[in-house]
């Protein structure tokens, strides 16, 4: 609470907040379109996030529309993501 009464810089505050609360609570309520995670915690899992970002880039580079046979399941994952209640 010290942080909030001492600074007016939203970015300083949000970094701190993320640190203190983790992303789950960071965005607080459902109204944010920011993805809500069931299990991942963006603060704890930053390393994993970076890793999967690389993996995803590599795959999309080779197979932009995820049409190849080996990526059938990935296509499904993406489609589900767009359909699901959870917004991305």
């Amino acid at each position, binding site marked *: *609470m*010290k*942080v*909030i*009464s001492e600074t*007016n*810089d*939203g*970015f300083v*505050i*949000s*970094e*701190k*907040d*993320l640190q*203190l*609360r983790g*992303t789950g*609570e*960071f*965005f*607080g*309520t*459902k*109204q*944010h*379109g*920011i*993805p809500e*995670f*069931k*299990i*991942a915690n*963006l603060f704890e*899992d930053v390393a*994993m*996030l970076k890793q*999967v*970002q690389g*993996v*995803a*880039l590599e*795959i*999309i580079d080779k197979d*932009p*529309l*995820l049409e190849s046979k*080996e*990526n*059938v*399941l*990935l296509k*499904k*994952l*993406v489609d*589900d*993501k*767009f359909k699901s209640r959870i*917004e*991305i």
Partner: protein
Amino acid sequence: MVDLEKNIQYIKGVGPNRATLLNKLGIFSLKDLITYFPREYEDRGNSKKIAELTDGEEALVYGYPVGRINEVRIRKNLMISKLIVRDETGSMLVTWYNQGYLKNIFKPNVEYKFYGKISRKYGRPEMNSPVYEEKSLSKNTGKIIPIYPLTYNLSQNVIRKIIESGLEEVKEKLEETLPEYILKKYNLYDYNTAIHQIHFPETFETFRLARKRLVFEELFSMQLALLSLKNKYEIKKQGIKFSKDVKMSEIIDKLPFKLTKAQLRVLEEIDKDMESTKPMNRLLQGDVGSGKTVVAIISAYKAVKSNYQAVIMAPTAILATQHLESFNEILKGTGIKCELLISGISKKKKEDILKRLENGEIDILIGTHAVLEENVVFKNLGLVVTDEQHRFGVRQRSIIVEKGKNPNVLVMTATPIPRTLALILYGDLDISIIDELPPNRKKIETYAVTKNMEQRVNNFITKNIEEGRQCYIVCPLVEENEEINAKSVMEIYENYKNNVFPQFRVEYLHGKMRPKEKDEIMDRFKNGDIDILVSTTVIEVGVNVPNSNIMVIQNAERFGLAQIHQLRGRVGRRRISIILHFKISRKFTNY
């Protein structure tokens, strides 16, 4: 094949009543159930000998009862059941409070398991209020036990059992969701193993691996989805090239105020995007009051003067109306025609707007979700601005984008997302940040006060209202449950209206109200017909009431810092001062 969409009600051990409670947790289907992950775990896996027990630890002990339970009545409402338990290394005292039914439960010469917290007093270990079980049964002890988040009126035991029966139904039958080559390459558990081990891990290592697999999948699918989306935009032909002859400076020079350096920098970035053939997809971040709207207006000016139309989407009608006022004010004399499309307008007016929009008489359309409707057709849409990103999902953004031929897109948000995170989360957008407030904006004064200063706070509010100011009271979101939140708003409202400020006009606002009612209240507050507005965070999204200068945030410790920051920005326009009321009374609150 397992039917993952199976209604939760028909899972063994659920039924209609428990289904209602589970629904409140967001669990509707079998799939929801098995992906309702534990918050933490208790290690009831490794047993200890009585002689090894140390003070303060939680431990599992196997032992035999010595004699019967001895009940000691301390006072009227407090009775302690005491039982001596022994193993081959020694004995310990086990105690429970007010659990009379235990008296005849323990049989001599039967081995039991006890799990609980140890305290060592006078040399002999004690275990207080343990869970217990006959050794031959294995349900609540003897393994790593999951603890679930929010459970409403369901006990951990009940929810555990329900999840167990859910898992029983899907046992080894879940379809794999990740390709084999990924599982192999990154050394991940298969889906069945992961789901089972996340709920009932055999060891902490299997838990770690299960979590790794599930986190991988969750983040990975988000990244894939974002990248696919970005691809979709980029693969698609060329974007619009707005005229280099239309200079943003034409309008900037006419503004009655000076833009900040940050605003100018951001406008330059936008200008560059607009003049290139690549369709702009830009996220504009900036605190409340940093002047995002004027950036949108200038961008729209450029689009319109290049002979395109622009659309501005706002999350609420009142915000859209406010935008219209700003647009009209700044674009006065340019001949640019702005219109407002919200659900409240008359059918005739709407038809008229739609007609003029289609034949190009309207240059800038400002509206709510109403602009997404199918019959809203533009002649030549070139710029899409969405305000407050978090109210519009990616899907809605793509609906509006489809209304033009690769229009430029500007997404504005006041949520201060750390840059590192934004880069990942908004993989599909470029990012501009306004990190400077206009010089005439005073710093918001923020005071953290405790409950015992309430009288002083109230006096301060009274003084300000008597001077003609207005005040916000913000109540905490207790849970993601609008009913409970509404109740807490109502309680505080009643108290303020009847007891604390009977002389003032007090009103309330919460998420359970209909949009029309909400807009009505906000309108009245804006017009100065309400002195004190008690609300949940529904005011979080961008409405400016310049005359309001105090915000009291109740139980502020329940909010995130970023949220508080955004909230207090609401009173920031012509602020005099602001109070954050940290009623640190967590233990005593009952709402």
